[in-house]
């Protein structure tokens, strides 16, 4: 792995990224574990998960007390969470924090992971893409393999908890155990269901309809179902490596390493190299804006090594950037959460010019850091960015360019957006809000069962 400055001054990393890995949790809030002896090229050591009290400086004592009051009637109640991977990806990252926090509140959460062969996970990957709207021909063989692995897992697992939460489509058929289980069954769907492939959705729907309720991440993902559908926004952990407060010296060090000049405005997009994130559009918008305002562009991402399409997109981005010394393209490995955090904090403006998006947690991260944010009005982004109040929504390259110019030349307005954005995240998109939602759901489910 190497970090090289190219002839045109761009900093590039020649090892492509891996799929997302969970951020190692931090031990104490507002404390920088300055990676003085490590560089971004080596993974950081794991640090212990935070406790509920660690969130008090962020959300206040009253909010922590409210969580305790909410949990009081639930003491000893149990929840089982089932998903398809123990590490890697947003769901595992979220459960990694949620399960111990529920435990601290004396709600016992068990986390179980389904197993399967490559044939199973190839099919579930295809299902995932198809539910996002991709073309897919569902064969009888795929149906059989999918159901056989689910049956194998079902026979291995026990479902004695008060609430059983099945995450995403991979383990959805486990619902067939419901008849032998005392609990309330919930299907938590983390993916964009706004235009699902009808073959795959019609295959899955009979399973989903057997649940007591479903949870989706955006209003537009709700389906016509005979069960209650709740809205749980995805969330970020303010104490994770990617979001915790950083010492400015570390932010400076990261900028120095990557050749970023902090004395000039910095416009940043953090995203894997994926056409749906429109990195080429960001380069075009930047070039349009820079005709009027001085600035640099940082495109920080990963995913170009394990994904042939990612490598192709990275190539396209480099071509679009040309020999512009003010465009810094960083293909970072997945353990660079601290560096991503530093890049976001160093930014004057953060952009997320997605063409399609599930929720857009990079937007949440930027808002949490108080950054004026410009983002595509797609997927769950309008839930986070209320136009002109918590950020700016755009629909085109030209719109993005204009908003970059506007925010760079109206710093007071930009700062107000940043303040509002941070409060929006504090109220609606933090891990502690997620804990609150799960406690509420358990209370409401148990009340419904009693009545």
């Amino acid at each position: 792995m190497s970090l090289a400055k190219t002839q045109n001054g761009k900093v590039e990393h020649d090892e492509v990224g891996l799929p997302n890995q969970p951020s190692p949790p931090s031990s104490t809030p507002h404390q920088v574990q300055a990676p003085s002896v490590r560089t971004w090229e080596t993974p950081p050591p794991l640090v212990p998960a935070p406790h509920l009290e660690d969130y008090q400086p962020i959300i206040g004592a009253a909010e922590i007390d409210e969580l305790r009051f909410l949990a009081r009637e639930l003491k000893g109640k149990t929840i089982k969470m089932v998903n398809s991977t123990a590490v890697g990806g947003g769901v595992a990252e979220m459960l990694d924090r949620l399960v111990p926090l529920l435990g601290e509140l004396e709600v016992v959460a068990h986390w179980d992971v389904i197993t399967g062969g490559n044939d199973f996970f190839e099919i579930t990957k295809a299902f995932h893409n198809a539910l996002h709207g991709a073309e897919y021909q569902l064969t009888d063989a795929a149906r059989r393999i999918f159901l056989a692995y689910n049956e194998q897992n079902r026979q291995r697992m026990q479902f004695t908890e008060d609430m059983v939460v099945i995450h995403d489509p991979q383990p959805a058929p486990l619902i067939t155990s419901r008849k032998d289980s005392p609990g309330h069954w919930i299907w938590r769907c983390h993916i964009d269901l706004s235009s699902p492939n009808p073959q795959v959705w019609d295959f899955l729907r009979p399973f989903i309809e057997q649940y007591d309720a479903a949870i989706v991440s955006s209003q537009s993902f709700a389906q016509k179902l005979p069960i209650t559908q709740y809205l749980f926004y995805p969330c970020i952990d303010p104490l994770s490596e990617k979001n915790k407060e950083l010492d400015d010296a570390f932010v400076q060090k990261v900028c120095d390493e990557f050749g970023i000049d902090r004395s000039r405005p910095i416009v940043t997009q953090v995203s894997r190299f994926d056409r749906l994130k429109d990195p080429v559009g960001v380069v075009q918008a930047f070039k349009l804006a820079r005709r009027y305002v001085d600035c640099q562009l940082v495109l920080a991402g990963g995913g170009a090594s394990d994904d042939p399409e990612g490598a192709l997109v990275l190539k396209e981005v480099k071509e679009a950037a040309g020999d512009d010394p003010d465009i810094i393209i960083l293909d970072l490995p997945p353990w660079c959460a601290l560096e991503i955090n530093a890049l976001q904090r160093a930014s004057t403006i953060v952009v997320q010019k997605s063409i399609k998006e599930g929720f857009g947690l990079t937007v949440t991260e930027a808002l949490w850091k108080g950054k004026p944010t410009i983002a595509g009005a797609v997927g769950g982004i309008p839930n986070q960015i209320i136009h002109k109040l918590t950020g700016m929504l755009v629909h085109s390259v030209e719109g993005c360019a204009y908003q970059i110019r506007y925010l760079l030349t109206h710093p007071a307005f930009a700062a107000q957006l940043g303040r509002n954005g941070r409060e929006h995240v504090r109220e609606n998109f933090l891990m502690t809000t997620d804990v609150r939602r799960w406690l509420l759901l358990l209370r409401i489910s148990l009340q419904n069962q009693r009545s």
Partner: protein
Amino acid sequence: MTTTTPSTCKPFYFNTSSHLLRITAQKATTLAEFLDALRACSDDSIFQHSFRTLQEHHFIREGFSNDFAHWVFASCNEPSLAEQLASVDVREFSSLGELRDRFAQIVERHLQLDPRAGTHIAGEPFYFCASDIVVMPTNLVAGTLQEFAKGLREVSVHSIHHHFIEARLRLKLTSNDFSLWLQEDVGLTGTARQLDRIDIYTATLEGVRAQIVRAVERALI
């Protein structure tokens, strides 16, 4: 000198509430569909998009004060209708039925004047949501005005919303829990009236809290 509550008065128990969002079956892609859904949706949905949204966006002073107005402006490009919907002050209503009727009348009148506006496809649909609400106690109880001021400073903004904004639906009065306690149990009618005059639309909920605390502290002098 400090003011104490009369020895016989009831203490004020600070409660709070938490809510879980549900997505309902109603969805509108045009203003005509919106009007139909507005008439047909549950009271919970009216509550969610008018009262509850004030809590979810309590940190914002600017912009539209309810979700209906925001959608009409941002997705339907109907600024005049948006302004009319935004001008509805939830504090003037002590029942959700009356509030629903008011919103529906405004949209109906707009569509009578401009029927074509009813068929334009909105940029984004409006999804009617509702909430399941759980009310909880807190540790804070006020037996004196000093304790009341302390409680006001310490409770979460959710508690402020619960007592100061949501309460009027519970009480079926255009008042709130704080004013009612100050007036009926402490005898501070003037302070209660000052609280009733606080503008919840031009201040954040933290700003509202600060104004309530200032009014109570003035009564302590």
